[in-house]
């Protein structure tokens, strides 16, 4: 089947490099320096120099925009990153504001396919403020928040999860397989924040509740760090050390369908637009989902994985909690999931784990985590109910 995404001959976008900075709980370093390190590593991995990079894309947004952030310390506008990296020949760049780093990959793929640039860098990072993460200390709320924050409420993921469990009679304990898979994969990922700390099933079941039904281990660990990839066109990729993975197509959720406001979106509404995104993905790529041998799915909150597995059609509605077993999702299973640990294993870098690992697996540079005979990888990012997704194929 031919997909809708059809770049001109030789212009199909390909991965050629990936790089990370260290990923740590505490640091004095600025986000700008961590991003620059990740980008520099990715450019070197691609066998290029910064002078050859002529395209950049990044989503600079960070979770709590209400906290003032000096540019460079913990928020980095794209032009600042370009200055840090030192690329005098930039001819295309874009700052995307939705869909995070997966959205950036899609922008870069379009730019390469259109001939807007030859070598594109995509990056993303996060740096924690010296405050309790996301703490809301205001005494007044206005606008949409008037109807949410006074109740000490507004966390959507646990609400979605609570309804999912009750609606489908699912056992929250089944999430242990998702958590253990992330933790095991993180052991083989050099920069993963959980490397060296091995969980047992018992650890998950005894993990303290934060917002029931979610416990501490259902949340990704807030960290400081960054990751980056380099992409080019098929015609240029053959001159680089280890090109791999052709962007076969992509899709994004259609938020215009929402009948509710952000704080008020709910499980059924989310599922509807996720399903529509899945249909758009297979239409764009022409790929059969049975050919997908690697799943990289957003996991800032563990239940997100269950929801997307169902929406993408890898299992039926209400079945993911029984489908996503370690046997099936581990690196030796039929559907390897988040093979570098995802955010739950590497740390909260908002999709960086998924994108960098997709690139590495397709380039064959995933080291001890490398899958054999990988024909296609699916990479999804975004929030619990909105997002974007692409598929990379071997040919």
């Amino acid at each position, binding site marked *: 089947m031919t997909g809708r995404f059809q770049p001109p001959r030789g212009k199909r976008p390909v991965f050629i490099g990936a790089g990370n900075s260290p990923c740590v709980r505490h640091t004095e370093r600025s986000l700008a320096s961590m991003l620059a390190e990740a980008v520099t590593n990715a450019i070197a991995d691609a066998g290029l120099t910064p002078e050859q990079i002529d395209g950049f894309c990044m989503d600079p947004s960070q979770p709590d925009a209400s906290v003032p952030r000096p540019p460079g310390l913990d928020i980095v506008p794209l032009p600042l990153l370009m200055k840090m990296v030192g690329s005098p020949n930039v001819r295309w760049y874009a700052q995307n504001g939705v869909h995070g780093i997966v959205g950036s990959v899609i922008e870069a793929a379009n730019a390469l396919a259109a001939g807007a640039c030859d070598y594109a860098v995509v990056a993303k990072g996060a740096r924690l403020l010296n405050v309790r993460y996301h703490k809301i200390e205001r005494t007044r709320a*206005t*606008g949409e928040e008037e109807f949410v*924050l006074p109740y*000490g409420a507004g966390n959507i993921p646990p609400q979605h999860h609570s309804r999912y469990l009750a609606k489908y009679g699912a056992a929250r304990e089944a999430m242990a397989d998702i958590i253990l898979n992330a933790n095991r994969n993180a052991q083989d990922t050099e920069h993963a924040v959980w490397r060296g700390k091995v969980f047992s099933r018992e650890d998950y079941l005894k993990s303290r509740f934060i*917002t029931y039904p979610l416990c501490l281990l259902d949340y990704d660990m807030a960290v400081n760090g960054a990751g980056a990839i380099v992409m080019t066109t098929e015609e240029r990729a053959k001159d680089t050390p280890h090109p791999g993975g052709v962007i076969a197509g992509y899709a994004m959720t259609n938020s215009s369908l929402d009948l509710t406001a952000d*704080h*008020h979106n709910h499980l059924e509404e989310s599922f509807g637009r996720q399903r529509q995104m899945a249909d758009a993905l297979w239409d764009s790529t022409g790929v059969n989902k049975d050919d997908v041998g690697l799943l990289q799915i957003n996991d800032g909150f563990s239940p997100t994985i269950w929801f997307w597995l169902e929406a993408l059609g890898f299992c039926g509605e209400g079945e993911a909690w029984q489908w996503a077993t370690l046997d099936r999702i581990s690196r030796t299973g039929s559907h390897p999931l988040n093979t570098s640990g995802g955010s739950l294993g590497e740390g909260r870098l908002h999709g960086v784990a998924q994108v960098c690992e997709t690139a590495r697996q397709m380039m064959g540079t995933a080291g001890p985590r490398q899958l054999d005979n990988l024909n296609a990888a699916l990479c999804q990012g975004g929030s619990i109910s909105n997002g974007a997704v692409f598929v990379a194929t071997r040919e």
Partner: protein
Amino acid sequence: MQPYGILPAPTEDTAPYWEAAKRGRLALVQCQDCGFYLHPSRFFCVRCHAGSPNLAYTELSGRGTLYSYVLHYETRFNGFADKVPYIAAVIELDEQPGLTVWGNVLEAEYEDLKLGLPVEAVWETTDDPEIVMMQWRPASAGSATSTGA
């Protein structure tokens, strides 16, 4: 749930909601063309997309069912640290499928809650005489919506 650590600062657009709340009534914006309720309020109807929005606050019954509910053992919200564990819930209002509001469920234990449980609004006064908060409790069979603050 009182005292509240975070109180609303109403705007011109939301003032009618809070004026109704002071009277122990729930009022939301409704499209006068197609009847669709919009919460929080918007400047256009997301269902009929009418070119000249014809929106007005309309009173609802203050009755609904539990759509989802969680138990906060930890909280990031000002004023809630000494209330844990507390229930935060999403209520689906009787008037329209998918029309949901946030709230706390009072007068109930978490273990007694279940999906679809009928609930009714109760109204709590706050330190701010201009603000009365809508809260929820399991509906008593055949009872009218409570209007007592």
